[in-house]
């Protein structure tokens, strides 16, 4: 079974610093996901350079198939030496998760990886060895859907030291807090954001060190079926609806005419509310057995906008609020982002005469383009997209 890896991170800069000394790189190769968290010595520019170099070198080398030994040796030999401390140093954690569920963890001086299964912290049994004079810990294990892994920089472990807490938050507390949080929040970005929020509160909003958390969640496969647009030939109506409704998973209908077709073929009623939660978007409707029914092109263009804004701000609470809004576009975006590993798109290619009216804004004529853009965004996020045309 292919594992789907949902990864997100959030960094807090040391108070007063513009740059973060921690760096996360997540790369997806053909059959695995590699996440690297590096924490550079000190803070500010120097730490930022050290950690960026470290994470980029490791990530690129492993991507290209180099071994961990080679990567570590390269880092030890290439990092610039700090003038003050006469050291070239950046701690790092590497986590590689193969699509078949094998996980490979390599750590150097970072707090140990937090591994949570079913809301409980699991022990990992690392082995230690020396590479290029450094003590490296290594661990191989397997993951299952639902597991959560977190790599954190020491700023998280020492959160609140000398401020809210005498000795900081410490690893045990962080991991048990996160274990509890996994029972409430399911998506990696939300977990990363809420951990970061907690840390920020412990520091009383003045972080004493760069604090980064990287949360990885192994997501169970979940399919979302989306139907949009009437088929070119009216005779194909029953076919598209049949294919769509018999496909397992969640169901979204996107488009007024499409909703009418689905309702007609299934002989069910559409209920449309007149409740405008967002004045610029038509309200959503309801068909029994369909998870979400929305208007088409206006809603879709907003959804695409939401997804575009979201990319790069995965862990910014502002965007969670956007996603939690009760309008059709936000509901689609949320479902696609947080409850979807596979999207099956059932697209009818009929041209809507109403959209050819020159008096209407140009964005109405570009539904196909919107759907292509949507697919592109989701593929970039590591989701599988399947398109079926009618």
């Amino acid at each position, binding site marked *: 079974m292919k594992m789907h890896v949902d990864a997100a991170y959030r960094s807090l800069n040391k108070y007063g610093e513009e740059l973060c000394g921690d760096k996360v790189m997540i790369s997806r190769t053909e059959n695995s996901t590699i996440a690297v968290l590096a924490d550079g010595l000190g803070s500010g520019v120097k730490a930022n350079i050290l950690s960026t170099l470290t994470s980029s070198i490791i990530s690129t080398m492993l991507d290209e198939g180099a071994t961990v030994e080679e990567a570590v040796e390269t880092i030890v030999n290439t990092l610039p030496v700090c003038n003050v401390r006469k050291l070239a140093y950046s701690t790092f954690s590497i986590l590689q998760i193969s699509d078949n569920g094998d996980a490979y963890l390599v750590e150097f001086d970072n707090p140990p990886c937090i591994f949570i299964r079913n809301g409980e912290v699991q022990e990992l049994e690392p082995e230690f060895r020396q590479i290029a004079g450094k003590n490296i810990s290594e661990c191989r294990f397997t993951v299952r859907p639902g597991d959560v892994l977190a790599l954190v920089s020491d700023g998280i472990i020492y959160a609140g030291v000398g401020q809210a807490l005498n000795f900081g938050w410490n690893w045990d507390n962080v991991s048990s807090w996160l274990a509890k949080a996994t029972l409430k929040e399911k998506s990696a970005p939300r977990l990363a954001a809420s951990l970061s929020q907690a840390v920020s509160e412990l520091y009383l909003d003045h972080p004493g060190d760069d604090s980064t958390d990287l949360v990885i969640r192994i997501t169970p496969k979940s399919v979302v079926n989306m139907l949009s647009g009437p088929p070119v030939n009216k005779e194909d109506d029953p076919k598209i609806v049949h294919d769509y409704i018999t496909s397992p998973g969640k169901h979204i209908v996107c488009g*007024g005419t499409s909703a009418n077709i689905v309702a007609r073929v299934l002989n069910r009623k559409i209920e*449309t509310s007149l409740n405008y939660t967002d004045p610029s978007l*038509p*309200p959503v409707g309801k068909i029994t057995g369909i998870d979400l029914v929305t208007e088409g092109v*206006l809603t879709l263009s907003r959804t695409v906008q939401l997804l575009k804004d979201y990319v790069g701000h995965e862990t910014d609470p502002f965007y969670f609020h956007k996603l939690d809004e009760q309008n059709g576009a936000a509901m689609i975006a949320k479902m696609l982002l947080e409850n979807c590993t596979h999207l099956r798109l059932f697209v009818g290619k009929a041209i809507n005469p*109403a959209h050819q009216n020159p008096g209407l804004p140009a964005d*109405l004529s570009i539904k196909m383009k919107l759907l292509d853009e949507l697919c592109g965004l989701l593929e970039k996020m590591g989701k599988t997209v399947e398109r079926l045309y009618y």
Partner: protein
Amino acid sequence: MYYKMDITICIGSSCHLKGSQDIIRILERLVSYHHLEDKVTLKGSFCMGECTSNGVCVDVDGKHFKITPSEADSFFTFEVLKRLEEQEKK
């Protein structure tokens, strides 16, 4: 028999852009102004297939009207109220 009227306003993309939300607001206000909440039900519907014409498609007892927000007031007086009166006489 007690007469009840359904007014269905199209909220499809095309009508939405032509102002279905305004029409819904105006009609809601008129309904409550005339105390007709028991007799008139306002409903929404996705595309009703009248997109190419000017104005928002509004369905009253199976008959389609195309109205713009500025016509909503007179539509209510001359179609909705009149129809209700006629029905009451029967």
